[in-house]
C-alpha cells in the first residue's frame, strides 16, 4: 500500500496530489512541468511537502501535522530518476552491490556480491558485471538501475521517465521487462511518463496530472476512451475533439456541430446544452463506396473528401474534410487494403453513437 496526500506551493507551481495505490503500477502521466517528478520526490523524501501525509506499507513516513518526516534513507523506496543514475565510477557489479553492502539491509561482502551477480543475471547482464557505465549502452544502464533498485528490496517503486532517452526498440524491450519484473515483485509502483503509449503499456491505472493536480485516474482503456476533460483528451491524443450543442431529434439525441450532427448513445441529455465530444480516430469506420451503409444503421454517416493519408506503420491515419472541419480516422493496414485511400477521393464515414464520448467537464 502506498498512500500519498501531499501538497507543495512553489513560485512556479502549486502541487496538490492525492494518490492511493495497491500492489499495482500507477502511471503518472502528464506534460512536462506538471509536477510529476516533484510529486515522486515528495514521496521519496527528497523534497519536503508543505502539508499532507505519506504512508508506505502501513508505516507513516511523512505527516506534516504529526511532525513526522523520515529521511529518504529510512523510507523503503526504490527510486530511479530520469537518467539511470548508475554511478559512473563503479562497475555494474559494484553499483548493484553497493546497497547490499551499505544500504538498509547489509550483507557480508561475499554474499552481497553473489546477490548482485544474481540480480545482474536476471537482467541478462552477468557478462557485463565488470563494465563501467561509460562502456555500457543506455538500455544496459537502465537494466543496471533496475537490478540495483531491486537490491534495496523496496516496498514501493518510484520510477521517473526511465526510458525517455532510449531508442524505440530498446524502449519497447524495457517496457516489457518492467512489466515482467513488476508482475513478480507486486509492490506499489509509480511510473512517470509523458508518452501515452508507454502509459497504456506499463500502467494498471493511469493518473493524468496537469498543472499540479490529478485530473483523472482510471484504467488505461477507460482514460484513453473516456477522458474527463479537454486537457486530458488532448494529452491522451484522443484525436477528434468536437464542440457543439445537444439537440433532440426523431431518433433520440445528437450533437450538432459544424462538422455535422453526431448521434449520441442514450443518456441524460439536455436539449440545447453546449457540449464537447471526443471521437477517437480508431472509433470511426471508413465505408467502401460499393457497399450500402445498412450495416451501420444506428451510426452517424458523414461524407467528405480525403485530404491526407499518413502511414504510421502499425496504423494508417486518414484525414477527411467533411465540410466545416476535418475528422481524423485511423485504421489498420489490413483494413485499409480494400479501400481506396487517396487524397482527393471521397470517403464515407460511420461513427457509432457509443464512440462519441461527451466530456463530463469540457474545460477551456
Amino acid at each position, binding site marked *: 500500500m502506498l498512500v500519498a496526500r501531499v501538497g507543495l506551493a512553489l513560485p512556479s507551481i502549486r502541487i496538490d496530489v492525492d494518490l492511493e495505490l495497491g500492489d499495482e503500477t500507477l502511471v503518472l502521466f502528464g506534460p512536462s512541468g506538471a509536477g510529476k517528478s516533484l510529486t515522486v520526490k515528495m514521496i521519496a523524501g*527528497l523534497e519536503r511537502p508543505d502539508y499532507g501525509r505519506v504512508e508506505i506499507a502501513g508505516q507513516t513516513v511523512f505527516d506534516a501535522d504529526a511532525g513526522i518526516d523520515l529521511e529518504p534513507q529510512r523510507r523503503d523506496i526504490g527510486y530511479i530518476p530520469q*537518467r539511470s543514475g548508475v554511478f559512473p*565510477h563503479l562497475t555494474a557489479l559494484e553499483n548493484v552491490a*553497493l546497497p547490499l553492502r*551499505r*544500504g*538498509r539491509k547489509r550483507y557480508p561482502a561475499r554474499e552481497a556480491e553473489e546477490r548482485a551477480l544474481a540480480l545482474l543475471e536476471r537482467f541478462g547482464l552477468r557478462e557485463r558485471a565488470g563494465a563501467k*557505465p561509460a562502456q555500457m549502452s543506455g538500455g544496459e544502464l537502465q537494466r543496471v538501475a533496475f537490478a540495483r533498485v531491486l537490491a534495496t528490496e523496496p516496498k514501493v517503486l518510484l520510477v521517473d521517465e526511465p526510458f525517455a532517452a532510449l531508442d524505440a526498440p530498446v524502449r519497447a524491450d524495457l517496457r516489457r521487462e518492467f512489466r515482467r519484473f513488476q508482475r513478480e515483485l507486486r509492490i506499489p509502483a509509480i511510473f512517470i511518463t509523458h508518452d501515452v503509449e508507454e502509459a497504456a503499456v506499463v500502467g494498471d491505472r493511469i493518473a493524468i496530472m496537469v498543472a499540479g493536480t490529478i485530473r483523472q485516474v482510471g484504467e488505461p482503456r477507460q482514460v484513453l476512451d473516456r477522458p474527463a476533460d479537454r486537457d486530458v483528451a488532448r494529452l491522451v491524443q484522443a484525436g477528434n475533439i468536437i464542440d457543439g450543442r445537444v439537440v433532440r431529434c426523431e431518433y433520440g439525441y445528437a450533437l450538432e456541430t459544424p462538422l455535422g450532427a453526431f448521434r449520441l448513445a442514450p443518456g441524460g441529455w439536455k436539449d440545447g446544452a453546449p457540449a464537447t465530444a471526443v471521437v477517437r480516430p480508431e472509433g470511426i469506420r471508413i465505408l467502401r463506396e460499393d457497399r450500402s451503409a445498412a450495416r451501420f444503421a444506428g451510426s452517424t454517416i458523414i461524407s467528405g473528401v480525403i485530404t491526407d493519408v499518413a502511414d504510421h506503420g502499425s496504423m494508417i491515419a486518414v484525414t477527411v474534410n467533411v465540410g466545416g472541419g476535418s475528422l481524423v480516422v485511423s485504421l489498420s493496414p489490413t483494413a485499409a487494403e480494400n479501400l481506396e485511400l487517396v487524397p482527393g477521393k471521397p470517403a464515407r464515414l460511420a461513427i457509432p453513437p457509443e464512440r462519441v464520448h461527451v466530456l463530463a467537464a469540457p474545460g477551456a
Partner: protein
Amino acid sequence: MSDPRLPRPYVEPAGRASRPRGWRRFRAPDSLLWLSTGVLLAFILIPLAAIFLRGIEDQQLIRPLDDPLVQDALALSLVTTAITLALAVALGTPAAYLLARYRFRGKAVVSTLIDLPMVLPPAVAGIALLIAFGRRGVLGPALSGFLGVELPFTMAAVVIAQTFVAMPLYIRSARAGFETIDDDYLQIAATMGLSRLTIFRTITLPLALPALLSGAVLTWARALGEFGATIMFAGNFAGRTQTMPLAIYQSLEGGDLSTAIALSGILIAVSFTVLIIFQVLTCTSPETAR
C-alpha cells in the same frame, strides 16, 4: 568554340575541388592557429631552456645541492608546502562542499571573501598578515601574551603566508568538482539507504576526486612559488624562513647569478615532475562526474 551568348555550364575549378565542406569552411586557416600557438610555446620554453643552458654552461646545475643554504631552502620549501597543502585540503574541502552543495544567506559574500587572497597582491597579503599577527599587530600581543606564540619570522609564518595565498585555488577547484556532481547520484544513494557519511565517502569524494587533485596541485605549486607574502610576513632568514624563491632572490641580490640559476633549475624540475605525475594520475583515474 562555344557560343559566348549561351550560359556556360558551371565547372568546379580544379583548385577548389578539395575545399573543406560544412563547418570546416568556417575554421580559421590552420596555419594561423599553428603559428600563434607556436609563438606562445616559444614564449614559455625559451626562458625555461635558457636557465638550463646557462646552468650547463656554468656547470652549476648540480653543485649548489652541496651548499647547506640550498639544502636548507629546499627542505624548508618541501616541508612548508606539504603542511600548507594538508591545511588547504583539511580546511578547504568542507568549505568547498558547503559552497557547492548548500544555499544560504550571504553565500556570495563568503565565496568572494574566500577568493579574495587569490587576487590580492602577495605583498599586500604579507603586510596584512603582519599587521594582524605581528608582534605589534592586532592579535600579536594576545598570541604572545596568553599563548606564548610568536608567529612572525618563524616557519609557522611561512606556512600561514603560503596557505593564505594558495588555499583559494584549492577551494575553487574543489567547489567546482562538488558542484558538477549530478544531484541524481546523491538522491539515489540516499534512497538506497546509504548514510550521509557513506554517500560522501563512496560517491561524492570519488566523483570529485579529479577536481580535488587538480586543486591540490595548483595550490601546492602556488605555495612553492610564494614569495611576496612570505618575505613580508616571515622574513628572509636562512634555515628558518628562507624558502627556495627567497633563496633565489637572495642569491641574485648578492650577485651570485649561478646559484640563482641552479636553484631555479631545481624548482623547475620539481614542478615539472609533479605536473607530469598529476597528468598521469588524472588520465588513468576513473570517469569524472557527468
